[in-house]
């Protein structure tokens, strides 16, 4: 026991809120849940989760609600600000304080950065950040780490390729920071010149546990060295002009041809939803794990909810 008990009553606002040891305990539990989900069907019986989505994110909301329902608990909430009291001008603090009177746990998604901290300060029950603007999305990071650990058997000494929009991709920045905490991570940062990682992310790598990085424009030149390839979307609106976008977009689309030189045990990840950055033909490649990743997201949220409610059995 210990680490999981420690999480009882806590908030998860940003990935760094949990120590590496606490994360490990959480992933151990998530693995067990994934192996026999039925054994956990009464874990949150009689408990209520409030999902406050001030902006729509169907995928994340469904993942949290499924997680709670599979634990035997129930979920309430709203899925956009228009249908909530926020439309009448109620503050985040008041909304969360009120909901805390009904529910045992609050999940919040809000377009403003730091909104989850306002919620946590006002709330008597644990708060989970399900995305605060371009700031943090810690359960996505937990999902990514759990998937890597489950597929590769470890989180240290891995060569991680991140490909696509590395400038605006919050998911990518959080994952880089989280993986930098593990021993000897080698990053391959694959992006067009216009979408390179910001300097503060490079500083996270440099402050890491022996992490190294290479920046490159070429997916083809790096793919054969990777243990993990994490794809993100290159969006049209990120470019100043249409020609640059058209010239570059195909270089960052993964297809069966580009997969050929990759190692047999490399895994391909993607936070989903995907648009066209991974060709559908890659889906049947056993190295594509992005749908498993979505499933892991539910399991890790089940583990998280259990731990914050103080119901986690080791």
């Amino acid at each position: 026991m210990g680490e999981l008990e420690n999480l009882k009553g806590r908030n998860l606002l940003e990935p760094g809120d949990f120590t590496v040891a606490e994360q490990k305990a959480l992933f151990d539990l998530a693995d067990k849940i994934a192996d026999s989900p039925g054994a956990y069907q009464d874990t949150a019986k009689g408990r209520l989760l409030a999902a406050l989505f001030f902006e729509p994110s169907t995928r994340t909301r469904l993942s949290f609600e499924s997680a709670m329902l599979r634990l035997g608990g129930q979920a309430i909430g709203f899925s956009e600000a228009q249908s909530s009291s926020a439309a009448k001008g109620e503050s985040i603090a008041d909304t969360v304080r009120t909901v805390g009177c009904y529910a045992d746990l609050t999940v919040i998604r809000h377009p403003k950065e730091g909104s989850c901290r306002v919620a946590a300060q006002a709330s008597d029950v644990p708060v989970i950040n399900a995305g605060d603007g371009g700031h943090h999305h810690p359960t996505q990071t937990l999902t990514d780490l759990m998937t890597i650990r489950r597929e590769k058997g470890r989180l240290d000494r891995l060569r991680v390729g991140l490909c696509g929009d590395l400038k605006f991709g919050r998911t990518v920045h959080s994952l880089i920071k989280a993986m930098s905490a593990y021993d000897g991570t080698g990053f391959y940062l694959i992006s067009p010149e216009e979408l390179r990682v910001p300097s503060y992310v490079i500083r996270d790598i440099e402050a890491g546990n022996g992490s190294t990085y290479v920046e490159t424009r070429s997916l083809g030149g790096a793919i054969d060295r990777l243990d993990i390839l994490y794809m993100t979307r290159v969006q049209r609106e990120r470019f100043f002009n249409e020609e640059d976008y058209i010239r570059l977009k195909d270089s960052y689309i993964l297809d069966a041809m580009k997969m050929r030189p990759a190692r047999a045990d490399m895994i391909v990840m993607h936070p989903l939803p995907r648009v066209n950055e991974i060709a559908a033909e890659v889906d049947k490649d056993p190295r594509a794990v992005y749908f498993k990743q979505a499933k892991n997201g539910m399991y890790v949220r089940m583990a998280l909810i259990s731990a914050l409610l103080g119901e986690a059995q080791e």
Partner: protein
Amino acid sequence: MEVNEIENGIVIDHIKAGTGLKALSYLGIDTRTDTVALIMNAQSSKHGRKDIIKIENLLDIDLASLGLLDCGATVNYIEGGELVKKVKLALPERVTDVIKCKNPRCVTSVEPAIQHVFLLVDPETEEYRCEYCDETVRF
């Protein structure tokens, strides 16, 4: 220029020349009622020119935010004409409601009745970050 010594109160010395007025506003001194002298561009043996603030009959003021403006300043507490305490200002760890976060995506731009809190990141660079959105600033 001469300003009489004070019997009881505070003398803030070695304020960076030209920042004395701003220092007064950071201190929240009420210039309508408090007895205050602001001396600007006084000769200083150390720094060439400096500003000095003298506040009479007031010992209980919040100096934390003054550290932000000028962490080289010294505060002298005077009672009965005697110097009883001398404090060198340092950068405060936590600054509440002195400035507002400028990040338009920050929750502080929409949430009513919220405190604007900045936390010291690095005393070397004098960088602070918004407690909510992590936007960094230097005061």
